[in-house]
C-alpha cells in the first residue's frame, strides 16, 4: 500500500503532458520584452515625479495639514489588503481540503508577494524624510502601530515568498531538463533554485511538513498585518476612524479586493498562456462563489460600520456620515457601495455571471472600487477634524490629489505588475507536479472502480 504515487508510470505520463502545456509559456519572447519595456519606461517616468517630490517636499502633493494622509496611504492599505488573498486561498481553503484551488494557489501567492512587497515601498513614498527610514530600526518604539506594521508586513512577505517557492521546487527540478532553447541564465537559475530535488519520497515528506507549518503560520500573520493596518486609523480618537470593528472590517474587505485580483489574473493567464485545460469554467464558477461570499461578509461589516453611528448621529460622526451619504463624497461613496459591492453580489448569484468573461468584468469593477473604498476610508475623515480649519489658504481646506502624487502611485502599481510578470513568465504559473498528482490520483481511482 505504501507504493509511492510519484514513482508510477501514470504520474510520469501526466507530468509529461502537464509540463509541456505549462512550460510552453516559460520563455523570454518578444511579447515579454515589449511588455517589460513599456513597464520600465512608464516606471521611469513615474519615478521622475518622485524625484520632484524628494526635491521640493511633500507640498507637491495635495496633502496639507488638515488632510495629511491621502492617496499614498489609501494605496498602502489597498496593497496590504489585496495581498491577504494568498492566505485565504492557500491556507483557509487549502487546509480545509478544497481540491479545486490547486491550479490557482500559485497565482494567489504571486499576488500576495507582489502586493506585500510593494506596500512597504508605498509607505516610504509617503514619508517626509525617507532618508531616515533606518530610524525605525535604530530608534523604534514598540508601542507604535507603525512598528507592528513594519514587523508583520516583512514577516508576511517572507512567509508568502516561501509559500510560493517551496511548492515550486519540484517544478523547477522537473522543468530544468525541459527548457531547451531558453536563455542559459534561466536554466542556471532553475538549476540553483531546484536545490538538488530528485523527487525522492523523503523530499516530498519534508516539503509537505514545511508547507503545513507555513500554511498554519500564515493565518495569524495575515490577520495581523491587516488588523494592524486598520489600527493605524482605529487607535486615533478621530470620528470616523474611532471604531472597534475596524480590524474585521478591513480583513473582510481585503478578501474582496484579493479575490477580484486573483480572478483577473486567472482570466489573463487562461487566455494568454492558453491554460484553458487547467483554469476551467469550473474553477471560475468556484472562485466566483468565493467572491460572492466574501462580498456578502463585507457588506455585513459595512452595515455595522455605517448604520450604528448613523443611528446615533453623534456630532462629529454625523458630519462625517453626511459628507459620505449626501455631501462632497456622495457620488464616490454610493458608486463604491453599490457598483462595487451590492450589484456585483446580486450578479454573482446568477450562475451565468460566474462564467469566465462576465466574472472578469465584475472583478475589474470590484477591484477598482476596492481602491476607491480605501480612499474613502482614509481621506474624508480628515476633512472635518474636531476643531475647525481656519485662517489657511484654500488649498489647505479640501484635499485634491495632484498629478505628481498620482504618478508616484502609478509607479507602485507598475512595480506590482513587474513583479507579477517576472514571477509568472519566468516560472511555471500553475503547479505542474500538483496537477499531475491530482490527475494521476483521479485516473487511478477510476481504474480501481
Amino acid at each position: 500500500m505504501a507504493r509511492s504515487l510519484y514513482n508510477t508510470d501514470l504520474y510520469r505520463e501526466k507530468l509529461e503532458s502537464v509540463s509541456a502545456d505549462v512550460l510552453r509559456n516559460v520563455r523570454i519572447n518578444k511579447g515579454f520584452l515589449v511588455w517589460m519595456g513599456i513597464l520600465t519606461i512608464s516606471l521611469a517616468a513615474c519615478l521622475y515625479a518622485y524625484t520632484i517630490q524628494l526635491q521640493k517636499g511633500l507640498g507637491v502633493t495635495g496633502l496639507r495639514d488638515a488632510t495629511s494622509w491621502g492617496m499614498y496611504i489609501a494605496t498602502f492599505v489597498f496593497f496590504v489588503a489585496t495581498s491577504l488573498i494568498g492566505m485565504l486561498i492557500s491556507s483557509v481553503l487549502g487546509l480545509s481540503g478544497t481540491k479545486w484551488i490547486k491550479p490557482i494557489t500559485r497565482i494567489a501567492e504571486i499576488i500576495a508577494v507582489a502586493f506585500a512587497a510593494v506596500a512597504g515601498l508605498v509607505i516610504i513614498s509617503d514619508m517626509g524624510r525617507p532618508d531616515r527610514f533606518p530610524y525605525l530600526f535604530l530608534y523604534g518604539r514598540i508601542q507604535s502601530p507603525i512598528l507592528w506594521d513594519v514587523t508583520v508586513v516583512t514577516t508576511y512577505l517572507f512567509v508568502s515568498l516561501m509559500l510560493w517557492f517551496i511548492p515550486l521546487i519540484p517544478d523547477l527540478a522537473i522543468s530544468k531538463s525541459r527548457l531547451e532553447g531558453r536563455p542559459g541564465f534561466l536554466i542556471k537559475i532553475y538549476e540553483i533554485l531546484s536545490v538538488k530535488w530528485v523527487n525522492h519520497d523523503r523530499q516530498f515528506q519534508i516539503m509537505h511538513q514545511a508547507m503545513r507549518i507555513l500554511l498554519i503560520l500564515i493565518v495569524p500573520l495575515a490577520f495581523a498585518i491587516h488588523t494592524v493596518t486598520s489600527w493605524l486609523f482605529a487607535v486615533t480618537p478621530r470620528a470616523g476612524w474611532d471604531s472597534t470593528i475596524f480590524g474585521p472590517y478591513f480583513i473582510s474587505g481585503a478578501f474582496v479586493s484579493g479575490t477580484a485580483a486573483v480572478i483577473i489574473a486567472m482570466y489573463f493567464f487562461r487566455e494568454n498562456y492558453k491554460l484553458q485545460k487547467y483554469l476551467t469554467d469550473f474553477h471560475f464558477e468556484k472562485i466566483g462563489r468565493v467572491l460572492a461570499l466574501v462580498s456578502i461578509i463585507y457588506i455585513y461589516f459595512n452595515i455595522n460600520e455605517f448604520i450604528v453611528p448613523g443611528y446615533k448621529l453623534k456630532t462629529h460622526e454625523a458630519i462625517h456620515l453626511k459628507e459620505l451619504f449626501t455631501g462632497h463624497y456622495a457620488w464616490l461613496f454610493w458608486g463604491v457601495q453599490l457598483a462595487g459591492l451590492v450589484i456585483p453580489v446580486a450578479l454573482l448569484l446568477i450562475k451565468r455571471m460566474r462564467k469566465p468573461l462576465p466574472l472578469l468584468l465584475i472583478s475589474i469593477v470590484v477591484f477598482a472600487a476596492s481602491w476607491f473604498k480605501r480612499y474613502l476610508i482614509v481621506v474624508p475623515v480628515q476633512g472635518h477634524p474636531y476643531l475647525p480649519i481656519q485662517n489657511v489658504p484654500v488649498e489647505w481646506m479640501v484635499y485634491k490629489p495632484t498629478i505628481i502624487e498620482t504618478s508616484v502611485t502609478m509607479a507602485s502599481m507598475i512595480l506590482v505588475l513587474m513583479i507579477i510578470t517576472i514571477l509568472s513568465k519566468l516560472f511555471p504559473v500553475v503547479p505542474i507536479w500538483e496537477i499531475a498528482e491530482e490527475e494521476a490520483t483521479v485516473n487511478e481511482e477510476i481504474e480501481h472502480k
Partner: protein
Amino acid sequence: MSEEINKPGSDDQEIDETLESSRRDFLKKVGLVGAASVAGAAAVYSGYRFEKNKNKGDTVKVLTEDNRLVEVSKEEINDIKYQVKSFQTKGRDGIKGKKWVMVIDLSKCRNARKCVNACQSAHHLRPYEYHINTLVMQESVNTPKYFMPKPCQHCDNPPCVSVCPVDATYKRQDGIVLIDNERCIGCRFCMAACPYSARMFHWQEPMNAEEDKNKPYNVELNVPQKKGTISKCLFSADRVRENALPYCVSACPNGVFYFGDENEDSVTNGTTKETVSFSELLEKNGAYRLMAELGTKPRVYYLPPKNRIFDFTEGEKPEYKETT
C-alpha cells in the same frame, strides 16, 4: 631623429645649471624662513609665558549646568557655543520640579492675533503655518460665537506621543510635549492622532531655511525648522527655561493668557504680569479643558467666554496665499 636625442646637447646643460642654481637659492630661502620662524615662535612663547604668569591666581566663580558653584582660573575659560547635542540633552530632560500649565481666558480674547504673530516670528513660520491659531468658535446655533486661541494642549495622555514610531515626539517631566526634528521621519501619524489639530508639517522648504541653515538645531525652539518634518507649539520651552513667559503669552495685549507652574499653584498673566492662584482662577471661573471626554488630559485650561466687555465682531478675514 633618434640620433639627435642621444647627442648631449648644449641646451640640456644650460637647463641643468639653471636648475642647480635655483635649488641652491631655494635652500637658502628655506634656511632663512626657518630661522625666522624659530625666533618668532620663541618670542611668542616667551610672551605667552609672561601673560600666563601675570594671570596666575586670578580665578572666577561659575555655576555649572548641574547647579554647582565652582571656581576656575580665568585663563581656562573658553567661550562655548551650544551644540545640537547639548540642546538635545536638556531639551529631552525638561525642567525638574515644574509642571507647566496655561490658562486661556476666552472672555478677553478679541482676536488681536498678536499671540499668533509673536509665535510665528519666534519660530520662523509663514503667516498660515501655526503653532497657535485663533479660531472662531460656536458650539451650536443658539450659543454665542467667540474667539479661541488654540495652542498645543500638551496633554498628559498625549495620543501623538503614543503613536510616534521613533521617539521623535515626547513628553517631558515638566509636562511639555516636544518634537525633535532631527529624529522625525515625517510619517504624520501624530497629526492623524491629534484631536486638536495642533500639529503642522513642513510641506515645503521652511521660510527661513537659507538663513537658519548653519544654526545648531534647538529642540526647545524648533529652529532651524526642517522640510519634511513635524513642527508644533513648544510652550516656548526655551523661554520658560530662562524664567520668561512664552512668546504668545507676553505678546497678548488683552490679558487672555496665564502661564505658570501647577506645582507652585501659581500662574502669571502675560499682559498685566499679575500672579494669581492657579486653582482659585479655575474654580472661580468655571474652567474646562477641550474635549475632556477623550481622556487626553490637556495642560491647557479654558475660562468660558462670559461677561465679555466688548461686542463680538469677526472683522475682515485676511486672505491667505501659499508662498515659497
